[in-house]
């Protein structure tokens, strides 16, 4: 299974192919699949090329290097379902079925592809085999912590100076990754959080930045290694908005098989979506109540989803919200009670006003405003009608006198 972090394949697919040949030889397999999203055409074309080359040189096919061992590789193009990263769903997808996970046991090693014993691993794992075989297990184990050995590739992205793929030894702290390897936060902004492990990873704040990068430590603080995503966020990021964004992704990528993931993540999203909503005159009392009740029940719902979902996607789906509630409770409360977004991301909670002392009365904002929310005479200070304002921010962009205030 290839994910974004495995874009390294574009560079070194031979490592993967060799790793797979060794793994196949070890377990006595004669057929291997590389499951790759069809959206990565470059990776696919390079892999295809490399497989052909290996076949040409007799490294794949029948009787490899006179060892009487046969092994063939096939690329299976996935249609882009996130859930197909889950091993049983991936197997179903290769079999041509709908990509839905199955309960385990039986594990793929007992009954996998076409009901046969199957070893299924990440690209990163298989690519490590070659180095381990040639340099020895001790060499590999010398890197990393006691329980998490070796190195891990992360895809650094977000509000960080050095973005891209990095391979780090297990056990170094998040701080080192963010501030040394990543080069810190650009534009002298403050670090707010780092989200580790892909869309369903947890968001970790400054207070736990000294956490070691290894499987156990990350789990202890509410994140996970996952697919190796490493998204850094600065002070301009709103944690409620982040939770909404990732939940939206997860619930639209849920395969729809098990109830907690299908229905539960949708309800979580709805609850989160009701939070950054501005107070309006005459708002339905029932809706108001629902807004608070939703948040009260959010933790319980998240716990049940984590506790009962069929596969890893559902079990980890509440992570962005749970870690948000744990580390950024004050931000949630601000949104909920004060209806304020400190990062200025949640548009509906913003109030646009015009500083009368700075406004020159040029009328540019008035002309640009799509909802006629700005009134005023030419040459005199203008005024924003709050009930007409849709918080699009157009006035802020057009004002040449910095007269628009946003709170």
């Amino acid at each position, binding site marked *: 299974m290839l994910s974004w972090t495995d874009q390294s394949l574009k560079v070194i697919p031979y490592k993967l192919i060799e790793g797979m040949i060794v793994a196949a030889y070890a377990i006595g397999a004669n057929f291997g699949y590389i499951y790759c999203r069809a959206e990565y055409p470059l990776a696919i074309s390079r892999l295809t090329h490399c497989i052909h080359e290996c076949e040409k040189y007799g490294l794949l096919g029948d009787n490899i290097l006179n060892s009487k061992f046969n092994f063939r590789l096939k690329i299976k193009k996935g249609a882009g379902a996130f859930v197909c990263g889950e091993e049983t769903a991936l197997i179903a997808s290769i079999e041509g079925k709908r990509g839905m996970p199955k*309960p385990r046991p039986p594990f793929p090693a007992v009954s996998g592809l076409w009901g046969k014993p199957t070893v299924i691993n990440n690209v990163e794992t298989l690519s490590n085999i070659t180095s381990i075989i040639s340099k020895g297990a001790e060499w590999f184990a010398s890197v990393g912590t006691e329980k998490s050995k070796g190195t891990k590739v992360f895809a650094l992205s977000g509000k960080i100076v050095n973005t891209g793929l990095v391979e780090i030894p297990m056990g170094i702290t998040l701080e080192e990754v963010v501030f040394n390897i990543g080069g810190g936060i650009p534009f002298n902004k403050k670090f707010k959080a780092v989200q580790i492990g892909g869309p369903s990873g947890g968001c970790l704040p400054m207070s736990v930045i000294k956490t070691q990068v290894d499987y156990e430590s990350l789990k202890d603080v509410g994140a996970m290694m996952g697919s190796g995503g490493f998204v850094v966020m600065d002070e301009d990021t709103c944690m409620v908005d982040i939770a909404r964004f990732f939940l939206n992704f997860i*619930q639209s990528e849920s395969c*729809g*098989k098990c*109830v907690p993931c299908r229905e539960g993540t*949708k309800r979580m999203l709805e609850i989160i979506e009701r939070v950054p909503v501005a107070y309006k005159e005459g708002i339905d009392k029932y809706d108001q109540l629902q807004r608070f009740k939703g948040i009260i029940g959010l933790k319980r719902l998240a716990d049940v989803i984590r*506790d009962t979902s*069929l596969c890893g996607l559902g*079990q980890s789906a509440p992570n962005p919200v749970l870690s948000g509630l744990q580390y950024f409770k004050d931000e949630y409360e601000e949104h909920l009670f004060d209806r304020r977004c400190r990062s200025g991301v949640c548009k509906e909670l913003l109030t646009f006003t015009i500083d009368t002392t700075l406004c020159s009365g040029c009328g540019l904002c008035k002309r640009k405003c799509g909802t006629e929310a700005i009134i005023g005479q030419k040459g005199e200070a203008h005024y924003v009608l709050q009930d007409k304002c849709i918080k699009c921010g157009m006035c802020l962009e057009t004002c040449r006198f910095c007269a628009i205030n946003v709170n």
Partner: protein
Amino acid sequence: MVELTINNLKVKAEEGMTILEAAKSVGISVPTLCYMKNLFPTGACRMCVVEVTGQRNLLPSCAFPVTEGMVVETNSPRVRRARKTIVELLVENHPQDCLICVRNKNCELQDLAERYAVREHRFAGEKRKHVVDISSPAMERDPAKCILCGRCVRVCNEIQKIGAIDFSGRGFASIVTTPYNKGLNVSDCILCGQCIIACPTAALRERSSTKIVSTALGNKNKFVVAQIAPAVRATLGEEFRMPAGTDVTGKLVSGLRRLGFKKVFDTNFAADLTIIEEANELVQRVVNNQPLPMFTSCCPGWVKFAEMNYPEIIPNLSSCKSPHEMEGAILKSYFAKKMGLDPRDIFVVSIMPCTVKKFESERPELGHDALHDVDSVLTTRELVRFFNMAGIDFSDLPDEEFDNPLGESTGAAAIFGTSGGVMEAAIRTAYYTITGQNLDNVEIDEIRGMEGVKSATLTMGELEVKVAVVNGIGNVRPLIDEINAGTSPYHFIEVMACPGGCINGGGQPIHQNLDNVMKRVRALYEIDKKSVTRRSHDNEAIKTLYKEFLKEPGSHTAHTLLHTHYHDRSGK
């Protein structure tokens, strides 16, 4: 054997058993929704989750095998909270129109909501909006009520092997639907209704005919008559809290008369008639070297399946109409003449265990003079609603006899309702037709029971007849492949679309207990055993019918009234 602890109870279980089965063996019930006995667990609904010491998450007990020393809690606060939340989530995405729902008081979701005391809308939000699929004359599909447990999909794909419905869409937009979301009538559906039996809610249901029948009963100019299928008498009692397998024939007759039916006839009479015609057809086919093996055509689901998927075997289908259509045809000809009635005034209502009979009764070729042989079909479930509406206390009804002359029947007809029954009845008469003698032992054990394909070889005089019985449409394809390959050893094959036969038909009371099916089957065999005559050709009323009206089996009149033809529906 492994020993484990369930709710502080030491339990011995066989290796490979699931936690659910182990718990059940000691009387601990765990709620389920997607679980289906004898099928590989899908683990979709998460209702059956239990707490196992040492496991991070709750585990689905339907899918998780027991291990030595395992400590299981099926009713801890954590488990109860999880289950309640799951029920709440399902309820919140459901129309919640229980008061006007056809499955009110017979709905698994409703039961669970009650059991877990769901009392408020904690997760109110968007609901799925779907249109009811009423394209089919026999069934309705209401995806808004669907809880996506997948039981219908599994019945359709894994048991019936039809594949008319499957999951589509992702996440919250998931839906169980037909290919390209077109109506059931243009899908591969054979309308057997097994999915209705499997559905925990009212997402799948029969197309109701109660209104048409009710209107007809109120019409003074109509002579409304009812006929009762063999399988209905052994199941209807279940809806009135009688034990499964109770024979309620007498009560049914008196009940239908109280509902206003002028005459109540027995489809068993026509079942005997079918046997006479079918046995004759079989003999004719053997003598005249016509296509063999011959397939029975009593099951309209099977007929539709053959027309849609294997049009090349249409010549092998018996041209006999199904029993209730024969009864209808005789009612609108022989009976009408005898009673001095205009056939147009007779309104024939069939009480059937079947949904696809609704489709069958609308086939234009099943009728003559622009009249359908059967005007309306009520399933067992719909009849129960009729009784309830009329305030008839079914259990207190007296036993009454069928009206004659179309009410007399033999034991051979009674077993039509179970898989292998038609074949057994046909053999009894075919033996007589071929040898001129009666079979000594009329019970043919090889073709009884619940196996998928049953076969027997019988010696009839000098003829060796090989017969097969297909129990459930999912088992029929290999036999057809044999025929197409020219290697089929059989002369006569019975096919029933529903596993177990009509006794487990798509219009029967909804149950989730396979033992009930066995009890129903036993009830039918019991009726046969107690019958004075057990061979269709000994039916005196049938003899009179032939003497007075049809002349002989396969005669011109018989052909016009009792035989039909089929269409290639494959679209090729």
